[in-house]
Structure formats: C-alpha cells, structure tokens
C-alpha cells in the first residue's frame, strides 16, 4: 500500500541517517602554506548573521588574515593552524550548539563569541570539557564572573569607566548626568559608573536608562536636562547612541557628551551627523595609530595590521577586528610557548602566563587572577572632529 511503503521508506532513511550522522565538512582556513604536519585545531564562534553581524564579520576577517599570515610564515612550531568558524547568528542557543560541535571536532581552544550573552552561553560546555575560551565581547561579566578557562580581549568596563570619569573630572565636569541602555553592556557600565564616580570627585545628578531598540530618548534627556549637569556620560553600544546625540542637539542641550568604546563605530558618526561633532569617547589606540607613539613596537604592530587589513578588505579595521586580532594573536603566542603536547590545558596555562604581548588593543599580561590583561594605559580619549576621530589633548 502506498502509505505503508512511503512511511517505511522514511523510517529506513531516518534509521540510516542516525549512525552516519557525523559533523559536516568543516570550513577550514589556512591549511595551505609552507607549514606541514598535524595542524593546531582552533574553534571560533562569531556572529556572522543577526544583530551583531556588523561586529562579527570584521572579526572573522581579521582572524582569517592572521591565520594566512602565520601559516605562510611556516606556522607555529612548524605546524599549520586551522580555524573552524561557526556562526551563532547572535543567538545564545546557537552559540551553545556550535560550541558542542567544535568540541566534538577536537579543538584545543575556542575564540568567541562576539556578544556577551553568547559568550556566557558557551562557558558551561567549555568548562566541562576543559577547553580555554577567549572572548571578544566587552561585558565585564565575562571576567567578573571569573572562570579559570575564560579570557577576554576587549577593555572591560571596570577599566574604561574610571578612565573616562577621571578625564571628565579633570576637565572640570563634576556634576554629570548619565544615560545607559538596559543591555548587558550598558547595565554593567552603569553599575561601575555609580560605584566609581566618587573617587575622582564626580557627582551623578541624573540617571536615566533606555531599552535597546528605543528610537527616541528625548524623554530621558529632558529629565537629565532638568538636573542641570555639567556634562553627560552615555554608556551604550548600538544605534541608539547616535539618536541620543541627535536628541541632545534637538533639545538645545549644550553640555558635552562623553561615551565609551561602544560608540567607536563609523555608524555612530554617520548616524549622528552634525550632532556627533565634539562628542568625546574612550577607546583603544587603533583608531588613531599615532596615539601608540610613533616608532614604538605597538605602533609598528598596529600599523602593519591596519595596512594588511585595508589591503585585503578595502576598509580600515575597527576595534572589533582589533579584538579578534588580539584573540588569535594571544593564542598563537601561547601555542608557540608550549613545550610538549598541546593539550587544551597546556594552552590555558600558556595563555595565563602571557606577559607583555603586544596587540592592537593594548599590551597584554595575564595572570591567574587577571584574565583581561589590559590597563587604562591602553585607552585614550578621542574627540569626534570633522567626521572622524582625533585625539583629545
């Protein structure tokens, strides 16, 4: 009978699929090159689609660039490096599934994820498997909820916020209004602002929040305006930041606006337009390479990366590409230092022993209680001038 036949066929297919179902073909990178021998297998979970695609794509490009360079130069310890990319589509569940898959493939370390939520989602499986993770997400929680297996390359809020507050106090802005978003990054930033404002002598006179996806912050800014602050500090990473700058202009608010690395994006300048002029933000030195100090090693490293990235992809690398460059570079450096078999645990130990490794986000030194490796020396204050970033003197 037609029905039974078709259903039997289906069942047989299903039964066959199960035993043969193994992980699909991997997207490999950098296996061509002068290096030979068993490759080091590294996993990478990035957001290539979804909300964070604008951050994840530069990250992948930066890693691919570096992998090719390393392999063409003979690899590490004579062995090539292979990075298996997975797209988490800016979804925590997919990040987790991707992580399990990578663990199955036998990776010895995982770079990822692009976003804080996805990074946290990967942690449980990686900890259980005993595999080190290097995150490119900026939420403090990644290293505040400390795990011996998790490392982080961006400057965490607990480093950047005091830096910005210091600079604001130096400029004489001692009564400030703050506005932050309710996403992980914004909440984290606000908590640290409130906790550390007193140290440089700054008082918070207004404290407003908005949700990611909000399109109009004039309400919140009206409240802040009413408190008469000297300046406004904004902690957000998304399109809402540009709207805040515009709203301030619309409300005829004259106070200067300060922000963090979250707004170190070309989209902020484009979106804010004229309202972006004069906005000050703290971020890494890659935006204006001169800030590394001409002739210094960090300057050379950054310039080389900027040059190669621009040549390969047609645009200059942003801070997110920088975070990815650092993540892979730290791994490569750690692998090079391992004596004996490169087990995940050996990789972790080597990572933790990193001292003075020069990246583009800064110079990294990890320790058993510090998996961030950066300090306030790695950040500078920029001012947006004539549609681009300039160092604020």
């Amino acid at each position, binding site marked *: 009978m037609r029905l039974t036949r078709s259903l039997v066929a289906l069942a047989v297919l299903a039964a066959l699929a199960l035993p043969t179902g193994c992980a699909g073909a991997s997207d490999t990178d950098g296996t061509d090159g002068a290096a030979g021998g068993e490759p080091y297998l590294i996993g990478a979970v990035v957001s290539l*689609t*979804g*909300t964070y*695609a*604008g951050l994840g794509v530069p990250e992948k490009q930066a890693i691919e660039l570096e992998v090719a360079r390393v392999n063409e130069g003979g690899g590490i310890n004579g062995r090539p490096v292979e990075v298996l990319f997975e797209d988490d589509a800016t979804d925590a569940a997919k990040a987790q599934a991707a992580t399990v898959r990578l663990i199955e493939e036998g990776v010895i370390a995982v770079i990822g994820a692009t976003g804080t939520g996805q990074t946290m989602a990967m942690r449980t499986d990686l900890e259980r498997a005993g595999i080190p993770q290097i995150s490119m997400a900026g939420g403090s929680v990644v290293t505040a909820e400390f795990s011996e297996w998790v490392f982080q390359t961006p400057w965490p809020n607990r480093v950047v916020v005091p830096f910005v507050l210091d600079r604001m106090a130096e400029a004489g802005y001692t009564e400030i209004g703050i506005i932050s978003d*309710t996403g992980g990054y914004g909440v984290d930033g606000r908590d640290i602002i409130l906790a550390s404002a007193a140290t440089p002598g700054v008082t918070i006179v207004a404290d*407003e*929040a*908005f*949700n990611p*996806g909000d*399109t*109009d912050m*004039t*309400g*919140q800014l*009206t*409240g802040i*305006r*009413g408190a008469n602050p000297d300046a406004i500090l904004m902690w957000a990473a998304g*399109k809402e930041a*540009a*709207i805040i700058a*515009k709203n301030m*202009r*619309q*409300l*005829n608010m004259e106070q200067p606006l300060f922000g963090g690395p979250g707004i170190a994006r070309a*989209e902020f300048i*484009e*979106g804010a*337009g004229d309202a972006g002029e004069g906005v000050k933000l703290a971020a890494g030195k890659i935006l204006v390479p001169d800030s590394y100090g001409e002739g210094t090693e960090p300057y050379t490293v950054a310039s080389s990366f900027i040059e190669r990235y621009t040549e390969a992809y047609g645009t200059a690398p942003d801070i997110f590409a920088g975070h990815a460059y650092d993540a892979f570079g730290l791994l490569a450096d750690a692998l090079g230092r391992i004596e004996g078999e490169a087990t995940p645990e050996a990789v972790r130990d080597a990572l933790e022993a990193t001292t003075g490794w020069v990246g583009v986000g800064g110079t990294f030194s990890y320790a058993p209680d510090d998996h961030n490796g950066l300090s306030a020396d790695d950040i500078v204050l920029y001012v947006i001038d004539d549609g681009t970033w300039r160092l604020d003197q």
Partner: protein
Amino acid sequence: MGSAELLQYVIAGLKSGAIYALVALGFTLVYGSTGVINFAQGEFFMLGGMLSVFFYQMDLPLPVAGAAGVACTALIGVAFERIALRPRRDSGPLVLIIITIGGSMVLKSLARHAFGPNEATLPEFTAGPSLDFAGAAIERQTLWVWGLTLVAVLALTWLYRKTRFGRSMQACSLSHDAARLMGIDTARVVMVSFGLAAALGALAGLAVTPLTQTSWDVGAGAGLKGFAAAILGGLGNPVAAVAGGLLLGLLESLSIAFVSSTYKDAISLVVLLLVLFFRPQGLFGRARKEKV
C-alpha cells in the same frame, strides 16, 4: 518639575503619538475594509524609511527619494494583498491573520538581506536649530511629522466623506456581502485599502527616520504601538485611530517622566491588554453586538 519641562514631555509625547497615529490609521483602514488585522503594517513603516534611504543613497534629491520610498511601499502593499491575501479572501479572519504574520516575517527578513543589518539615516527635511516654544524645544522635523499627519488625516476624511470610492470603503466595512450585492468592486476596495495603509505606514517611517534612524528590524515595535493605539481609540474609525495614537504617545512620555524610563514599553502593553479585556471597542468606538 517646571512647566517648561512638563511641556517638553508633552511635545515628545505628541511627536511619537503622531507617528503611532499614522501607523494606527493604516490598521484601521485595512480592518475597515477587510475585517483583518494586518500584522505586516509595522513592516510597511520600516520599508518607508529603508526604501527612502535606498533611493536617497542613489543620489536622488530628498523629496523625490521620500516620495519614491512611500510609493514603492504602497506598491508592495498592493502586491502583498494580491499575491498572498486575495486567493484566500473568503477564509475566516484567522487564516488572513496568519497570512499577514507570514508576510511580516518575509518582508522583515528580505529587508535585512537587501539592505544589510546596519542602521541608516536621512537628513532632516528642513535643516536648522530647534524652535523654542515657552521654554521647550521643538525640532523642525517634529513640525513636519505633525504636518504630514494632519494632511494624511484630512485627506483620508475627504476620501471617506466626499468621494464615491470612500463611500464604497465605508460600505465594505459594514458588510462585504451587502456591498458586493450593491455592485461595489470589493476586490478593488481591498486592494486600494492595502495600498493606502502601506503608504500611511511608509509615510510615518519616512518622516521619523531623520529623528530616530531606521533599520530592518524597526517594524515590529512600530506595528505593536500602532496597533495598541488603534485599539485604544477604537478600530474602524480614522479619527479614533489618531486620537488613540496621540493619547498613547502622551501616556508613554509621561510615564518616562513620572514612572520609569525603561518600563514605558510595558506600560503601553498593559494599556493594550486592559483595553482588550475591559473595553475592546476602544475609547471612542461603539460596542458591537455579535449576531449569531
């Protein structure tokens, strides 16, 4: 709180309220002629902004780009009605709702593929500083928003009351079958309703882009607010839709002032639920008796 500050909140509320009103008008239009809630209305709002940006980036002058964006969206609305809804127009409203839900998923996702994931903006229609009004600031673009909303409402009212087509639309909203029996081309009424609703949503999206930027995913939020406004005022009545929109905008703005800035979305949702549960015909609508 000073009077200038309060006035600022009121202005902000009326600004977003006007946007909600335009989107709500779209809901009301479609509901009036088809009895269907068009879940894709929010995506028409999004397309208005995104398509205008697309044309503007092709170096067309801003008014032309905006008009093209709105017109394109109207065409998409019409196409959607013809392709997806017309084949099933005699099925119950449940089926049609499902189709519009599917449509909204597709439109939103196609927009991401076509325009990318990043946000985009347009310059203000007339450049210049904000105007001062009794201590509060009004952006020039806000005046545009109010002006366009007023024009849209007037045009719709004229359409309904003074044109034959408008009367056909009213007939359809009372009873499809009776209208057909009277010789009205109900299919055309439905099609034009969709086109108009899409145009209204698109106009809102276009007008607000210089203020708030646009991106592929702004549709769901705008649609939800617009629907809440339509329900608050009362479905089926354009003036009620506008009133609902302005009221909702004010409610939100004042809740930022007096309650909490992050719960403002929840407040409009709670209002929506309360109206649905206790007065589904809206503030200005009449309770409809259901005939068996």
